[in-house]
C-alpha cells in the first residue's frame, strides 16, 4: 500500500485512531466482559479496513499508568490481505504485552492505591494527536483523521488541564473526537471533547450490541457524515475541574492573568505566579481610606 495512492484519494479515506480504555478496575466490574468487548472491537476495526482499502486504523490502549499503540493497520497489512484472524492474533498479543507492562508500571507506582483509578485519557489523546500530526506532515494529501474514544472508567479530574489542552489542540487541527461510553457514568471530558471538536458522543444502552452501535454510528467517514443524521447529545456538562484540588466545581475563582481555575480564594496563582494582593483585603488594614 504505497502512500502515493492515498494522496490521490483523500476525501473518503479515513484515519481512525481508537483509544481503548484498558482500566483493569473498570473491566473487573463491568457488565460486558473484556473478552467480548475486544471481539467487538476487532470486528469493528476490520469493518473499517474493509470499507476502503486505503483506510488506516490505529488502536491505542489507555491503561492506568501508561498508554501505548497496540495496533496499526499500516504495518499489519504488509503481509497482504486483511484477515480477521491475523488482526485478532496480533492485536491480542500486543494487548497482553501492554497489560503486563501496565501492571508492572502500576505495581511500581505508589500513587495508584484505591481500586478507583482513572485511565490515562490525556496521554492516549496526546499519542493519537501526535500520530495524526505525523500523517498530516507526511504529504500534501492525507486521509481524513478522527479519534474514537471507547471509555469505561470515570473521568480523572486531575487530568483536566491535559485533557482540555488535547481537546483544543484537536479542535485546532480539526480532528473530531467521537466518544462511546461503555461504562456506567457519562464522561464530562468526552462530552466536552465531542462538543468542541464536532464529534459524536454516544452512551449505548445495550452493551451487548456494541458492534452494532460502532458500525452504525462511528464507521462512516467524515464526508458521508454530513449526509447522515447521527445521534446528538442532549446537553454537555461544561463544568471544569479546579487546578488546586482537581475537583469538579460549579463555581469558582479564575485567575485574571492566565485563567486558571481555583475552588478557593488564593493569595497567589499557582500556575502563573500572579499575586492577588488586592483580593479580600482586611478592611481594617486601610484606615486611611475607611474614613
Amino acid at each position: 500500500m504505497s502512500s502515493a495512492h492515498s494522496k490521490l484519494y483523500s476525501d473518503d479515506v479515513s484515519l481512525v485512531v481508537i483509544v481503548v480504555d484498558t482500566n483493569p478496575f473498570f473491566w473487573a466490574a463491568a457488565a460486558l466482559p473484556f473478552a467480548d468487548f475486544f471481539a467487538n472491537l476487532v470486528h469493528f476495526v476490520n469493518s473499517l479496513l474493509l470499507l476502503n482499502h486505503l483506510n488506516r486504523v490505529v488502536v491505542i490502549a489507555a491503561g492506568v499508568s501508561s498508554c501505548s499503540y497496540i495496533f496499526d493497520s499500516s504495518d499489519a497489512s504488509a503481509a497482504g490481505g486483511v484477515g480477521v484472524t491475523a488482526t485478532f492474533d496480533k492485536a491480542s498479543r500486543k494487548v497482553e504485552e501492554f497489560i503486563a507492562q501496565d501492571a508492572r508500571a502500576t505495581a511500581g507506582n505508589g500513587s495508584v492505591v484505591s481500586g478507583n483509578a482513572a485511565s490515562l485519557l490525556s496521554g492516549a489523546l496526546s499519542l493519537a494527536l501526535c500520530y495524526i500530526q505525523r500523517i498530516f506532515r507526511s504529504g500534501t494529501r492525507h486521509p481524513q483523521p478522527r479519534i474514537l474514544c471507547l471509555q469505561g472508567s470515570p473521568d480523572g479530574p486531575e487530568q483536566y488541564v491535559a485533557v482540555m489542552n488535547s481537546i483544543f489542540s484537536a479542535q485546532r487541527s480539526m480532528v473530531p473526537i467521537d466518544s462511546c461510553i461503555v461504562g456506567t457514568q457519562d464522561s464530562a471530558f468526552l462530552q466536552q471533547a465531542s462538543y468542541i471538536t464536532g464529534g459524536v458522543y454516544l452512551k449505548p444502552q445495550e452493551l451487548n450490541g456494541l458492534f452494532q452501535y460502532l458500525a452504525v454510528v462511528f464507521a462512516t467517514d467524515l464526508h458521508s457524515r454530513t449526509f447522515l443524521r447521527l445521534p446528538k447529545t442532549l446537553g454537555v456538562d461544561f463544568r471544569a475541574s479546579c487546578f488546586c484540588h482537581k475537583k469538579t466545581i460549579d463555581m469558582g475563582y479564575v485567575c485574571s492573568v492566565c485563567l486558571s481555575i481555583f475552588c478557593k480564594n488564593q493569595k497567589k496563582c499557582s500556575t502563573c505566579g500572579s499575586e492577588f494582593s488586592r483580593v479580600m483585603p482586611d478592611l481594617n488594614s486601610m484606615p486611611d481610606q475607611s474614613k
Partner: protein
Amino acid sequence: MGSLTIGAKYKTTLKDPGTPGILRMNDDKFTFTPNDPRSAMKLNVEFRSIKGHKFNKVDGNKPALLNLSKDSDKGGGYMFEFDNVGNRDLCRDFVARVLGKHQGMPPRPTMPPEISVPSAGMEQLSAAEVERRVKLLREDSELQKLHKKFVLGNILQESEFWATRKNLLDDVANKASKQKPGFKTAMSDVRPSADGRTNKVTFNLTPEMIHQIFAEKPAVRRAFLDFVPKKMTDLEFWRKYCRAEYLLRTKNTAAAAAEAAEDEELAVFLKNDDILVKEAKLKIKQVDPTLDMEADAGDDYIHLPDHGILRDGSKETVDNDSEFARRTLSQELNRHAAVVLEGIASDVELTDAKSVAEALARSKKEPPSTSAVDDTSHERLLKVARMTEIEDLQAPRSLPYAPLCIKDPREYFDSQQANALRSLGASNDGRKSRNCSLSIEEAFHHLTDQISSIKVNKSNCTVIQSDMAVKVLNELNEGISRSRRLNLKNPQEGLLGRVPQHTRDELMDHWTAIQELLRHFWSSYPITSTVLYNKVQRVKDAMTQIYQKLQAIKESAQPDVRHEISRLVKPMTQALDAAFSHDLEQQQKSAKAGNKSNGF
C-alpha cells in the same frame, strides 16, 4: 489670560453699603484696594481658594452683585457690587474662565455654581462622547433597556454604566472613519466648443475639472505651481493649457511642434508627463517578474494601422516616434481609474486652484528615487523566488484551524438541562456495576484472564445477534427522532422554547439585568471607599428586587411549565445567592474585626 481692573464696592453682607475701591484680577488671584487708604477692607485672595461664583439677576434698581464663594457648603465668600451690569458681566466671565482653568474644566459662566461644583462621580464629557453613547443606545435596544433600568433608575451612575463598556465605545469611534468623497468616476473631458460664427474655440473649466486635471496630470500641476503667479496669471496658464489640448486633439503634429519650439511653457503641456513616466516605471518594477511584458507588448495591434479603438470618430493608433504626448484612450482610462481609486486627500478644498495644486503636491510623496542597484536586483530576485515557488520544496502550509468560541448563553441553559437529567435518572440503564473493590493485582489478573480466554476462543463467537441488532437500531432511531423533536439545533426550541413568550422575554430581561448588576457588584470588591460602598448598596437593593420578581414568576407560573421555569430560574438565583452570601460574609468579617474603624 491677562488681568482685569475694575471699580467695585466690596460688601461684607448684603445689607452692607459697601466699601468703594478697585478690584484687580489676574490668573492666580484677585486683590481689592479701597479708595480710602485708611480702610481695613483690603483683600488679597488666591483663586485657588475660590470654589464657585454666584451672581444675581439685575432688574430695576437692584445693584449688580457678584459673589465669589470660598466653600459652596458654608457660603463664606466675597461680595462685590458693580456700577452697572456690563462691568459685572465682564468680571463674572473673567472669574469663570479663571475658575474653569483652576478646576480643569471649560468655563461655563452662565451655569450657577451649585451645579458646576463637581459631584463625586461627575465627569466632563465632550459632545462627541455623548453622541457616541446616545448612538450606541439607539442601536442596541437591549443596552437601552439596561441603561433605562439602571442609570435612569438611579442604581448605577452614568460613568459606572459606561466604564464596563469602554470597548463598545471605542469600537464605535474606530468605525466612524469618515468616508472621503472621491472623484467622479465619469471622465470629465476638456472639450472645446465652437460658436460657429467666429473662428473662436471656447473651453469651459470648472474648479472640479481643474482638480481632476491636477490629479491626473502631475506635470501640469507642477507647471502651475512653477508658473503661476510668477510668470503668468491663472487665466494665461489655462489658456495655454487649452491651446495645447486643442493642438493635441486636432492631431496637428506639425503645428504642435512649431508652437512648442516658440513657447517653452506651452511645450510642457505637449510633452509626455515625466512624473507619470517615473511612476509607471516604478509600478512596472513591482509587476510579477515572471510576466514577460515585452513579449506581450505587441499583442494589442494598436500600433498597426486600421486597428485600435474608435475615439472621436477616428481610430487612434500609437506612433511611438512622436516626441509629443498622444495618450490613447486606454491609457487615459487607466490613469483616470488610478486617480479615482487613490481618492481625494481630505484636506483639499475645491475653491482655489493654487491651494488644490499645493495640497496634491504635498500628498504625493516622492518615491525613493535612487535606490541602490544591487538592492533592487536583490529585491527582484526575492520576488522571483516567491512567484516561482516549487510546490514540492515548500514547507507544509499551516493547517486550517477553527476559531475557539462558545458564546451562545442558551448553551448554558441546555447544559443545565443535561445536568438535571443526569441527576434524575442516571442509573436507569441496564448496567449495574458490581461494586467490588479489588486490589491492583486482582484487577490485572482478571484482565489477563480475559485476554487468555480471547486467545483460546479466537473470534469464533458471534459478535452480534439479529434481535440485538434490531434493538440497537430501534434505540438509536428513537433517540434521534427524540432529539429531532426537541430540535436542539434550533435554540428557540430548547428549554426556553417551552416557556410562554412573555415569560421567556421577562426571564431573558432579568438575566441580562442580573449579569449587569453582578458585574458591578463583584467589581466593587474590595470596598475601599464610600463611593464603592454606596454603589454596592444600590446594586444590592436592585438585586433583591429582581430576586423577588424571580420568585414571583416562579410561583405564578402555570403548573405545566413550572418545572421548566424553576430550572431556568435556578442558575440566576444561585448566582444572586453567591453575591448575597459574599456580602454577608464581608459584613460579618468587618463586624468581627471591630466597629471602631468601620467607617462605613
